[in-house]
């Protein structure tokens, strides 16, 4: 009975947060990893679960977006593939560049993205869909993501917004790119941690459901303005987390 409740608790938490974050096109690992850890899962197992949950919910959302015709795979694929190439390069470079400096830059970058998101008028949007731009962006984002050990979504989302994509299109693109980086991260953790596969199945079902519900809400229920506000809140939360880790690094808190 207790075990059933334990599994149920993970299911409900995953469902709630995957739904909420899928509404912004991103994964919920940022909230679920510390939450699972506080519920007794070892940090590496919680991270592995978080990465897999991110993959499952964003894959579900991407399939639906492709079928609705709003996801341009041809334009987004170079971004996804190049981000996979950039990530190990960034991870390797972390030996030489202290990630805390990059975090400071990222914190400012996110603030700028949120500011521009509200400043930019609809007609002023650019169309940087050229493949080399996507490849360069993917390499850069992958590199920084590997360097800092953070998920790609927190970097890709503000980068696309800075490039002039509107909030909904950015969310559709991010949900397609994320599984590429998160799945490779998950398989890495799989080699170093022992996983409860029943629990993994439990949270996967919740993540798929959450991805479906969140994406459906975003697509049919939210106007571009509402998605914009929602994404701004997600980005501000990410920024708070980054600023917290910077302050923690310098022993200020």
């Amino acid at each position: 009975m207790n075990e059933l409740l334990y599994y149920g608790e993970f299911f409900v938490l995953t469902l709630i947060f995957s739904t909420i974050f899928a509404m912004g096109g991103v994964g919920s690992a940022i909230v679920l990893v510390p939450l699972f850890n506080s519920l007794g899962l070892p940090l590496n197992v919680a991270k592995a679960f978080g990465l897999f949950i991110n993959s499952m919910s964003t894959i579900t959302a991407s399939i639906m977006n492709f079928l609705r015709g709003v996801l341009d795979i041809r334009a987004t694929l170079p971004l996804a593939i190049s981000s996979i190439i950039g990530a190990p390069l960034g991870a390797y470079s972390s030996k030489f560049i202290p990630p805390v400096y990059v975090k400071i830059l990222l914190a400012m970058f996110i603030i700028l993205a949120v500011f521009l998101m509200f400043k930019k008028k609809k007609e002023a949007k650019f169309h940087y869909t050229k493949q080399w731009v996507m490849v360069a962006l993917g390499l850069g984002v992958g590199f920084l993501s590997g360097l800092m050990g953070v998920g790609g979504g927190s970097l890709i989302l503000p980068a696309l917004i800075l490039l002039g994509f509107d909030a909904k299109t950015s969310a559709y693109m991010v949900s397609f790119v994320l599984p590429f980086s998160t799945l490779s991260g998950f398989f890495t953790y799989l080699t170093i941690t022992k996983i409860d596969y029943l629990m993994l199945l439990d949270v996967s079902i919740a993540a798929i459901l959450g991805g479906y519900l969140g994406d459906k809400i975003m697509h049919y229920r939210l106007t571009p303005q509402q998605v914009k506000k929602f994404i701004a809140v997600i980005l501000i939360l990410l920024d708070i987390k980054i600023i917290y880790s910077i302050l923690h690094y310098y022993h200020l808190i």
Partner: protein
Amino acid sequence: MHRILSKLADWLIEKEEKEAERCDIPDEVIDEWLDILKTRREHLKKEGDTDSEEYEMLNDLIKKVTHIKEIRAKKCEIKK
């Protein structure tokens, strides 16, 4: 491959059609959907990909979303 995906798209849109036809959904949502589809179709036209299955799939989707828009216009106008 696109044919299978196109069938799946039909199924999804059919399943979600009722949702899209609800009057409490803002017009902006459907307009933006149509806008994205048309922009993508224009892009394929520019690239000369009008014979591709992706282009056909987009055309079908545009028809369906336009149909949803028409139904919404009639249904929601009557309600108003």
